[in-house]
C-alpha cells in the first residue's frame, strides 16, 4: 500500500540497530501494511547519527528524512540517544534558516516491540512528505553554468545585506 496514489518519493530513514530497526522488523513480521517510500539505513545507535547525515541526504535530493532510535532512558548504550536528542532538535530548529522545510525532517523513538507504533510513524511521515511533494533542490551546476555565476560575482553581491 502506498500512502497516496502518486509516485514514490525518496524518504531516507536512519534507524538504530537495537530498537527502531527491530521495531520495523516487528512490523514486517506481523505483516502490518506500510508505505514503501522509506529506504532504511541501519546505524548502531541514534547517537551515531551526525546531523550532517541528514543534511547531506536532503541536499542530495531526499524528499524526507526520518530518524528513529530507542526511547530516551532506554538506549542500548545507556546515553547515546540523550546526545542524539540534543543534536536532532538543534538541527530541526535550525533548518528553517537553510530554506529547507523543517517538516521534511522528523525524529522519533520506537522500541523493538512497538511494531504498531512503527507502522503509524512510517505511514504518517510518508503522508506528510507526499503532502509536501518532491523537495526543491539546490542546483548542482555544470562548468558552463558556473562561469555564468562567476560574472555576477565579479559585478558585486546581491543579497539583503547589501541593500
Amino acid at each position: 500500500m502506498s500512502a497516496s496514489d502518486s509516485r514514490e518519493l525518496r524518504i531516507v530513514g536512519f534507524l538504530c540497530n537495537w530498537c527502531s530497526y527491530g521495531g520495523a522488523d516487528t512490523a514486517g513480521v506481523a505483516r502490518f501494511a506500510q508505505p514503501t517510500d522509506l529506504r532504511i539505513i541501519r546505524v548502531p545507535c541514534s547517537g551515531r547519527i551526525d546531523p550532517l547525515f541528514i543534511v547531506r541526504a536532503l541536499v542530495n535530493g531526499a524528499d524526507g528524512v526520518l530518524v528513529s532510535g530507542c526511547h530516551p532512558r532506554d538506549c542500548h548504550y545507556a546515553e547515546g540517544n540523550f546526545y542524539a536528542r540534543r543534536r536532532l532538535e538543534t538541527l530541526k530548529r535550525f533548518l528553517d534558516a537553510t530554506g529547507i522545510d523543517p517538516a521534511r525532517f522528523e525524529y522519533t523513538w520506537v522500541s523493538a516491540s512497538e511494531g504498531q507504533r512503527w507502522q503509524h510513524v512510517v505511514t504518517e511521515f510518508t503522508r506528510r512528505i507526499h503532502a509536501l511533494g518532491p523537495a526543491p533542490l539546490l542546483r548542482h551546476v555544470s562548468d558552463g553554468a558556473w562561469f555564468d555565476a562567476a560574472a555576477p560575482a565579479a559585478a558585486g553581491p546581491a543579497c539583503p545585506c547589501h541593500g
Partner: protein
Amino acid sequence: MVEALKTAIAERLADLEMVIGWEMGFDALHATPLFIREEGDLHRLTLGPLAVHNLATYLPGLKGKKVGVVVKGCDSRSVIQLANEGLIKREDITVFGLCCDGVISHRKLREALPADLGFVEQATWHSDRLQAVVAGHAVEVRLQDILADKCISCRYPNALAADVLVGAARTPAPQPVPCQDAFDALPQAEKLAFWEATMARCIRCYACRNACPLCVCRDHCIATTRDPLWLGQENSPAENFMFQMIHVLHLAGRCTECGECERSCPVDIPLLLLRRSMNRVTEELFDYQAGTTPGQTPPLLTFQVEEARINERGW
C-alpha cells in the same frame, strides 16, 4: 587607551614568548596583526576601529607556549570557548582585554566611499568619524554608519575574563541587525532561492573556515578529506552550501559570533545569517551563549536526562 595597554604589555612581556596585537597595515584603512616579542616592537601597537581581526584565532596553533593576546569583547569569548574545550590552556595565556567601541566593516566602508579602498590616499580618525582623502576628494564617514554588524548586536563590548582590562567599561546596547531581520522575514522558498543564488558565487576558498578561531581540525577537516568523502569537488551552489552546513553544524553550540568567517569571505557571502540563526537555536534550547562562562561545557557535548526545553516528540 593604547598607552595604558602598552604599559601593561611591557610589564608582562618578559614572561611571555610574544604578545599578539595589531599594527597599521599596508594602507591607512587596514590594520594587521602584530607579534610583539620585545619592547622595541611596542611602539607599532595600534587600537581602534580598524583592529578588526580576532587574534584568538592564533592561539590553538601556539598551544603549549606562554603568549599574551589583545582581545576585544567578542574576541575574549573565543578565548573562553577555546579554553572550555581544552583547545588551549587558559593558564598559558595572558589576556589583555579591551573595552571596545566597535570596529568597522570594510565592506560597508567600501560602499560608503566614492571610490575603491585602493584609492584612499589619507585617512584619520576623530572620535566617531573617519576623514579620508579618496582619489582627490575629501570625505567624512560616521563610524556608526560603517560599524560591523556584530558590533551593532554586541552584548559583550568589554572583554570577559581578562587578566588586564584597559579602557572605560561600556554599557552594552545591542540592536537588531537589519540584514538578519530582512532574511528572517523571507518565506522559506525564498530562503532556499537566496542561498542558491548566494552560494553560486562561493569559490570554496575556505577562508571562512581558516579564519574561524574554533575551526581547529586543519588537515583533518572533512570538507577536504577524501576518506570519508563528504564533499564533492564540484563547485555548485549545492556543494558550496553543503560546506556551509558542515561549518555551521560543527560550530553549533561553539560559535561566539565573532564574525571572522563573514569578514574574511572574498565574495561577501553573508555567512553570519546562518551562524546567528544557529546561535539563536542553541540559546533558546540550552540557554547558552558560547564563550561567556569559563568552565562551561558546550551544550552538544553533554545532556540532561529530562530536557527542559525539548519535548519527547510523541507520535
